[in-house]
C-alpha cells in the first residue's frame, strides 16, 4: 500500500471518483461535501450519487488514493444483471456458500473484487448495514472476503449483491475447496502455537531474571525450588503444544532415514527440557526453561512468516471456478432460461451474448463471432469462430451472440485438462536439495556421536559428573545458530524482495535462483506488454494526421475489441451515426454525412466508390489498419504489441550474470523473430503448444540446466510448474500466480536481475552463517567435553553466536538498485 499519495488529489486532475482522465466536453457532476465534483463517466456519477445519497460521503475523506479502477461496465445494474443475480436466490445455488442459522438468518461468504484500501471496507460495511434485513457485515481487507448475515424473510441475497454492484464493486460467491479449508486450519493452528510460545516465553523469562539475580545476590533455597517448579509448569505447554511441529517433523524424517534440521532442533528442545525437569525434580544442576522457550518462539516466528508467504497467493485457490461463469442462458424449445452453469449437461443448447464468458466446451450451432482466448493462451487478439467450430469454456465471446451445443462439462473441459497437466508437471518437478538440510545430516550425526562418546568416557572416569558434562556438550553444540543460519537469511532476503516488487512463495526459490543457468521467457504479456497500442498514424493526405486519428477514434469508441481499445485513449469530438461492425473485418459509420470505414485494408477500401487504388501495405511489421472514406483511402494506423521498455536492459544484465536467455512462445508470426532480434535473445522456440513447452524445459533440465521460467497465461501454467523455479507476472491469471514459485508484482522485469543478484548474496550469507556456527561449535565442543564449560557459559555462548548469525543475515535487507533504466 502506498500511503504517501495525497488524498483528494483528483479534484483538479481527473475524475473525482476513479481518478481517470475526464474526456473533454463531458459534464458529469456530483455534489460531494457541498462542492461540485466532476466525474469521467455516467458510471462513476451513478456510483458517487449512490454513495452520497446513502450519507457515506466520508468515503472520499477516508480513502488514501483516488486511483481506484472498478470495472466500469458494471456500475449500473441492468434488468439482465438483476435476473442473473436472482440465480443466487435459488436454494440449490446457495448451498455452496450460504449457511442458514436459526430464525431464518442466513450467512453468506462472498469474494469482493475492486477493494483497494481500507476506505473501501468502510464504504461496503456501512452501505450494506443500511439495507433492510441485514444483521451483520464484515469485510476482510487482507483476503477481500465479506461475510453477510441477513434475515431471509425480509431480504433476498440478489438485492444485496446488486447494492454491492451499485457502489462500484463486484461480488462473487466464495466456496472454498478442501485445500483452502485445510490452509485456514493450518493458519489458525500456527497462530495459536505462536501465541502460546510467546506468552510462555515472557513468563518464563520473568522468573529466569529473578533466578539469575538470585544467583548473583544470594537467594533462599526454597524460593529457587519454587521458581523452578513454576517455570516448569509454564514451559510445559510451550514444549508439548507449541513445539509439536518440530517433533512431528523430526520423527517423520527419522522414519524415512533422512536427517533434517528438525532433528537437532528437536533434540535440543527435548533434551534441554528433559534435563531441566530432571534438575527441578532432583533439585540439582541447572534449568534451561528460558532458553528452550525462547528458542521455540524464535523458530516458530520464522516458520510462521514462511507459511504466510506460502498462503498469500493461495488466496485464489479456486480460481478455476471464477473463470467459468456462474450462470448460463439455456435454450429449451426456443425459450431462454437462466440456469446455474454447473447444471448444464452435454447436448444442452446455450446462448452466449457478447461480453459473456463461455460456460462449457461446445460446438457453435448458430451464429459466428470472435472469441477472446487470452485467459487460456495469453494471445490478446480474439480468434474468429464459425458455425460448427469448437469453443472452449472460460473464454469470452467478443462480438456477436452465438448458440452453442455443449460437448464437455466439468472435469472433462479443456480448462480442467490443463489443470491436470499442471498436476502431472508438479509431480515431475526436480527437487532442489536444501543446503542447510544436507549440512544438518552430517552435523547431527557428528554431534550425536560426540555426545555419546563423551558421556561414555566420563561415565568411566567419574559417573557423578557424566550427565552434566554430556548436557553441556549438547547445549554448547545446540544448533541454535546453525538452525537460525538459513531461515534468518531467507526471511531477510524474502522481505527485501517483497518490498522491491517480487513475492517469493516457496522456500527453495532463493537457492534455485542463485544456481540458475537458463532463464526462459514467454513472449506475449511477459517480454511484451500484452495489449495492442497505437504506434503510428500515417496519413495519405497532407497535414491531416490529427483529424484522421480523431475520426478513427470516434468510429472505434463504442467497440470493446482489443484493436478498438488501442484508440480509446484518443479524445474525439466527432459524432458517428449508423455505426455497423463487420465481424473480423472492421467498422463502418457516418461522420458529418460522409461514410467511413476502418479495418482490414480490403474491407475498408470497399467503401471507396471512385475506383481509387488500394494503397500498398507499408513494409514495417505490425498490424496495419486502413481508414477510408467514400472519397478514397485516408490514413494507415500501425498497431503493435509493445515490447516492455526495460526488457532489453534486463536481457543484457542477465546475460552479463552468465545466464542464457531463451524465449518460448505459442506465437508463430514474424513478430517473434523481430522481438528476439531487438532483445538479442540467445535461443528462440516459436509456435509450440503447452505440452511442447513443458517438454522443452524438461529436456533442458535433463541436460543439467537450472531453469527459471517467466510467464503469465494459463497455457504457461504446466511449464511454470515443470521448471525448477517459476515466476509469474503480476498481471498473470490467478491460476498462474498460485502455481508459480514467485510473482513479479511490480511487472518490472529488471527486478528479476535484482532477485538473482540478491539470491547469490543470500547464498554466500548462508554459507558464512553455517561456517561461523560450525566453527564456534567445533571450538567449544572440546572445551565442554573436557568439562571446562559451566552450563551458564554454554548458554551465553549460544546466545552470542545466534546474535552474530542474525546480524549477518540482516545485511540482506539492503538492496542496491543500480540497474534502473536511465
Amino acid at each position, binding site marked *: 500500500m502506498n500511503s504517501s499519495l495525497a488524498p483528494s488529489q483528483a479534484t483538479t486532475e481527473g475524475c473525482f471518483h476513479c481518478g481517470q482522465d475526464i474526456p473533454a466536453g463531458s459534464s458529469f457532476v456530483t455534489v460531494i461535501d457541498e462542492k461540485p465534483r466532476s466525474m469521467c463517466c455516467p458510471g462513476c456519477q451513478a456510483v458517487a450519487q449512490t454513495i452520497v445519497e446513502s450519507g457515506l460521503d466520508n468515503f472520499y475523506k*477516508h480513502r488514501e488514493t483516488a486511483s481506484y479502477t472498478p470495472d466500469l461496465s458494471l456500475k449500473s445494474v441492468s434488468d439482465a444483471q438483476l435476473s442473473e443475480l436472482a440465480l443466487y436466490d435459488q436454494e440449490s445455488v446457495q448451498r455452496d456458500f450460504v449457511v442458514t442459522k436459526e430464525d431464518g438468518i442466513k450467512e453468506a461468504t462472498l469474494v469482493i473484487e475492486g477493494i483497494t*484500501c481500507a476506505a473501501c471496507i468502510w464504504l461496503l460495511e456501512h452501505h450494506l448495514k443500511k439495507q433492510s434485513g441485514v444483521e451483520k457485515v464484515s469485510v476482510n481487507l*487482507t483476503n477481500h472476503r465479506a461475510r453477510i448475515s441477513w434475515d431471509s424473510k425480509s431480504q433476498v441475497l440478489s438485492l444485496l449483491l446488486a447494492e454491492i454492484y451499485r457502489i462500484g464493486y463486484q461480488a462473487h460467491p466464495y466456496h472454498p475447496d478442501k485445500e483452502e479449508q485445510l490452509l485456514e486450519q493450518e493458519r489458525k493452528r500456527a497462530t495459536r502455537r505462536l501465541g502460546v510460545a510467546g506468552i510462555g516465553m515472557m513468563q518464563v523469562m520473568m522468573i529466569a531474571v529473578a533466578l539469575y539475580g538470585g544467583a548473583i545476590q544470594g537467594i533462599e533455597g526454597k524460593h529457587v525450588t519454587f521458581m523452578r517448579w513454576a517455570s516448569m509448569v509454564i514451559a510445559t505447554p510451550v514444549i508439548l503444544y507449541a513445539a509439536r511441529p518440530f517433533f512431528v517433523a523430526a520423527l517423520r524424517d527419522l522414519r524415512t532415514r533422512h536427517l533434517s534440521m528438525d532433528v537437532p532442533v528437536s533434540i535440543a528442545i527435548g533434551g534441554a527440557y528433559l534435563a531441566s525437569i530432571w534438575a527441578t525434580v532432583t533439585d540439582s544442576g541447572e534449568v534451561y526453561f528460558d532458553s528452550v522457550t525462547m528458542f521455540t518462539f524464535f523458530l516458530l516466528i520464522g516458520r510462521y512468516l514462511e507459511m504466510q508467504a506460502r498462503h498469500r497467493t493461495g488466496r485464489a485457490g479456486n480460481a478455476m471456478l471464477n473463470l467459468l461463469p456462474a450462470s448460463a442462458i439455456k435454450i429449451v424449445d426456443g425459450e431462454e432460461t437462466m440456469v446455474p452453469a454447473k447444471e448444464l449437461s452435454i447436448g444442452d443448447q446455450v446462448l452466449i451474448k457478447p461480453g459473456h464468458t463461455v460456460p462449457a466446451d461446445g460446438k457453435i450451432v448458430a451464429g459466428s463471432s470472435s472469441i477472446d482466448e487470452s485467459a487460456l493462451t495469453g494471445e490478446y487478439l480474439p480468434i474468429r469462430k464459425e458455425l460448427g467450430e469448437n469453443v472452449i469454456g472460460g473464454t469470452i465471446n467478443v462480438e456477436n451472440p452465438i448458440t452453442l451445443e455443449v460437448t464437455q462439462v466439468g472435469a472433462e473441459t479443456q480448462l480442467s485438462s490443463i489443470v491436470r497437466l499442471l498436476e502431472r508437471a508438479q509431480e515431475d518437478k526436480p527437487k532442489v536439495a536444501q543446503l542447510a538440510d544436507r549440512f544438518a545430516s552430517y552435523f547431527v550425526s557428528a554431534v550425536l556421536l560426540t555426545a555419546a562418546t563423551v558421556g561414555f568416557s566420563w561415565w568411566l572416569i567419574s559417573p557423578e559428573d557424566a550427565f552434566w558434562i554430556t548436557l553441556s556438550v549438547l547445549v554448547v553444540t545446540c544448533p541454535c545458530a546453525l538452525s537460525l543460519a538459513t531461515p534468518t537469511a531467507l526471511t531477510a532476503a524474502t522481505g527485501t524482495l517483497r518490498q522491491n516488487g517480487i513475492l517469493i512463495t516457496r522456500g527453495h526459490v532463493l537457492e534455485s535462483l542463485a544456481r540458475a543457468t537458463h532463464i526462459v521467457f514467454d513472449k506475449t504479456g511477459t517480454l511484451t506488454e500484452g495489449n495492442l497500442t497505437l504506434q503510428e498514424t500515417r496519413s495519405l493526405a497532407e497535414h491531416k494526421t490529427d483529424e484522421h486519428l480523431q475520426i478513427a477514434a470516434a468510429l472505434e469508441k463504442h467497440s470493446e475489441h482489443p484493436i478498438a481499445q488501442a484508440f480509446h485513449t484518443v479524445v474525439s469530438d466527432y459524432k458517428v451515426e449508423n455505426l455497423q461492425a463487420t465481424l473480423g473485418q472492421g467498422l463502418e459509420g457516418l461522420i458529418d454525412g460522409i461514410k467511413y470505414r476502418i479495418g482490414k485494408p480490403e474491407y475498408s477500401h470497399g467503401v471507396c466508390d471512385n475506383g481509387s487504388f488500394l494503397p500498398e501495405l507499408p513494409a514495417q511489421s505490425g498490424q496495419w489498419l486502413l481508414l477510408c472514406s467514400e472519397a478514397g483511402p485516408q490514413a494507415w494506423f500501425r498497431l503493435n504489441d509493445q515490447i516492455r521498455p526495460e526488457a532489453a536492459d534486463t536481457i543484457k544484465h542477465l546475460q552479463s550474470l552468465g545466464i542464457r536467455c531463451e524465449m518460448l512462445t505459442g506465437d508463430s508470426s514474424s513478430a517473434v523473430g523481430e522481438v528476439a532480434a531487438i532483445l538479442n535473445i540467445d535461443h528462440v522456440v516459436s509456435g509450440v503448444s503447452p505440452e511442447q513447452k513443458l517438454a522443452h524445459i524438461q529436456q533442458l533440465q535433463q541436460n543439467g540446466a537450472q531453469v527459471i521460467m517467466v510467464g503469465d497465461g494459463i497455457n504457461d501454467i504446466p511449464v511454470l510448474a515443470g521448471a525448477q523455479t517459476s515466476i509469474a507476472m503480476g498481471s498473470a491469471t490467478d491460476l498462474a500466480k498460485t502455481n508459480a514459485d514467485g510473482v513479479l508484482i511490480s511487472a518490472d522485469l529488471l527486478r528479476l536481475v535484482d532477485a538473482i543478484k540478491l539470491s547469490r548474496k543470500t547464498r554466500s550469507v548462508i554459507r558464512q552463517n553455517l561456517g561461523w556456527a560450525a566453527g564456534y561449535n567445533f571450538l567449544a565442543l572440546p572445551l565442554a567435553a573436557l568439562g571446562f564449560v559451566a552450563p551458564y557459559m554454554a548458554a551465553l555462548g549460544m546466545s552470542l553466536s545466534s546474535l552474530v548469525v542474525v546480524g549477518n543475515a540482516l545485511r540482506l535487507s539492503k538492496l542496491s538498485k543500480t540497474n534502473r533504466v536511465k
Partner: protein
Amino acid sequence: MDIIFLLIPIAIILVSFAIWAFFYSVNSGQFEDLESPAHSILFEDDDHLIPDDLKDKAKDKNSDEHKPE
C-alpha cells in the same frame, strides 16, 4: 519474600486466562484481517456526536488537516 508463593500461582492463573482469550480470538477469526482495523480507527464518522456549536470549528480543522498532506 514468601509472598511469591501466592503471587506466582496468581500469575500462572492470569496467563492461562490470557491464553484462553488468545485461543478464542484466533478461533473466531480476529487475526485474519490485521490491516483494516488499524485504518478504521482513523475514520471520522462521528460527526453526529459533535455538539452543534463546536461543529464549525471541527470542520475547519478537518479541511486544514487535509490540505497540506
